[in-house]
């Protein structure tokens, strides 16, 4: 087996409860690893602590117990090997598309010329070259999300942490963006941890899917996706095995029997 890029070792996260003095356990004893060039999806009910794991992996919040490791090194804070992307595009309205793409590399202190070169290459790759001088409000939601992906890739991270990156766009745009992401990850040999609510997205984009339980979140299942063409999610959707995987995940999440949670519950994660 190839090198481990990202690893969670016995990670537990507790938050102070706002209602009483007790602590609220978001995730408990989570351990798993993601290998080089592997794409792993994390699915689970709302509030199971998926995003908490992402924040721990990117070094933004330290876990209560256990540790995350990137390239074998314990994550003690933000580091250049990891980049994340959220459902919100987080583009800066006062920067042009090209300037938004270079945001991360600029902070990391790369020479301006190199920043510009990377932005131009990525934008050309995503067919956004003609928009590089535009401002974010002039783009469609799908294009903005593509710019956000370009910004994430510009820092050339070893590991990408993706938190429901396409859940805010319409279904057709989402399929196009999923295909773009899948191709990019494959071509660049990137390692990725993808958090998603979309079971089809998890099945079509990943090598493995991890299923989490309700809060306190633990990993209750691991499914290896034995389908070819990880760089072509649209072909995977047509694969005979696709529906079986989705059905299996639905069973594991017990979707038929889950009562809808009260509004706002678990929204903090």
């Amino acid at each position, binding site marked *: 087996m190839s090198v481990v890029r990202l690893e969670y070792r016995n990670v537990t996260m507790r938050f102070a409860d706002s209602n009483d003095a007790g602590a609220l356990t978001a995730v408990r004893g989570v351990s798993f690893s993601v290998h080089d060039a592997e794409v792993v999806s994390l699915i689970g009910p709302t509030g199971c602590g998926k995003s908490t794991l992402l*924040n721990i992996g*990117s*070094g*933004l919040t330290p876990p209560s117990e256990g540790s995350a490791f990137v390239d074998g090194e314990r994550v003690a804070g*933000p*580091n*250049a090997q*990891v*980049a*994340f992307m*959220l459902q*919100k595009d*987080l583009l*800066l*309205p*006062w*920067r042009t598309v090209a300037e938004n793409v270079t*945001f*991360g590399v600029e*902070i*990391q202190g790369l020479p301006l010329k190199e920043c510009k070169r990377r932005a131009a290459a990525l934008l050309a790759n995503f067919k956004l070259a003609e928009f590089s001088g535009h*401002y974010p*409000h*002039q783009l469609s939601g799908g294009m903005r999300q593509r710019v956000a992906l370009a910004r994430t890739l510009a*820092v050339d991270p070893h590991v990408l942490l993706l938190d429901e990156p396409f859940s805010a766009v319409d279904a057709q745009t989402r399929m196009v963006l999923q295909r773009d992401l899948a191709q990019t990850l494959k071509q660049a040999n990137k390692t990725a941890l993808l958090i998603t609510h979309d079971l089809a997205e998890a099945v079509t984009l990943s090598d493995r899917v991890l299923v989490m339980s309700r809060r306190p979140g633990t990993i209750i299942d691991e499914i290896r996706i034995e389908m070819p063409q990880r760089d072509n999610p649209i072909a995977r959707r047509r694969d005979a095995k696709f529906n079986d995987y989705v059905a299996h995940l639905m069973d594991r999440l017990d979707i038929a029997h889950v009562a809808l949670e009260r509004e706002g519950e678990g929204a903090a994660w």
Partner: protein
Amino acid sequence: MVNDTRAALVRRGAIASIFLLVAFLAAWQWGPGLLGVPSFIVPPLSSVATEFVRAWQVYHLPLHTGVTAAEVLAGFMLGSLLGAMVGYLLGMSPTAELALSPYILALQIAPKVAFAPLFILWMGFTVYPKILVAILIVFFPVMVNVLTAVRNVDPDLINLARAFKASRAQIFWRIEFPSSMPPMFAGLRIGSTLAVVGVVVGELVGGNLGLGYLLTFGEGQANTPLVFVSIVMLTLVGGIAYLIVILIERRVLHYLPARGVGRNI
């Protein structure tokens, strides 16, 4: 098509606006006479115009206008600079904000113009008390807007910068400072008109320079046209200050999508 209808709308609005101005000026000239209002209550437009020429030649109107404009400019610049700085500091330090908020609130509630006599006691009949009142009155809208803007920056945006290993200074200059620009300009617009109020009140209370002084001078002589001339000039000074803010705002916030009808109000 959309541009066509918008251009037509602007044209219709401009024509109506000019029509209203002509109607207003006509009403000013002939209204008082028709309604039997004595000219020492509302002098007709022509006598105000005559008084304007006289004030220009006899009462040093350009000098008074210049002094007031300079005080407005100084008070506005210093007040907004101070307001922005305190806004950023409090925005970045919740502890400082909690500690200072009751005093800031008290000072905000206190009518700033009431400080004018006090400042004149302190600094005499100079330009400084007028500038100080303007500073005090401009300070709050700018500070509150900047503070709120810094406080309301999307935490995910800060996290994004942090994940790229941004330093505190980088987070400020690349995220917080530019994010605060639109609300800050909203504060500056309010401040530019308030600065005139602060300066005039200072001039009304004491001194022998500025349009506020000319206002009391005209009042003392029962020279109603001179009072009107002073009011018109004050409006002009405030209008120019507001226009300057708008022009700078257009340049700085060029990246914002064009706003709808009445863009510059």
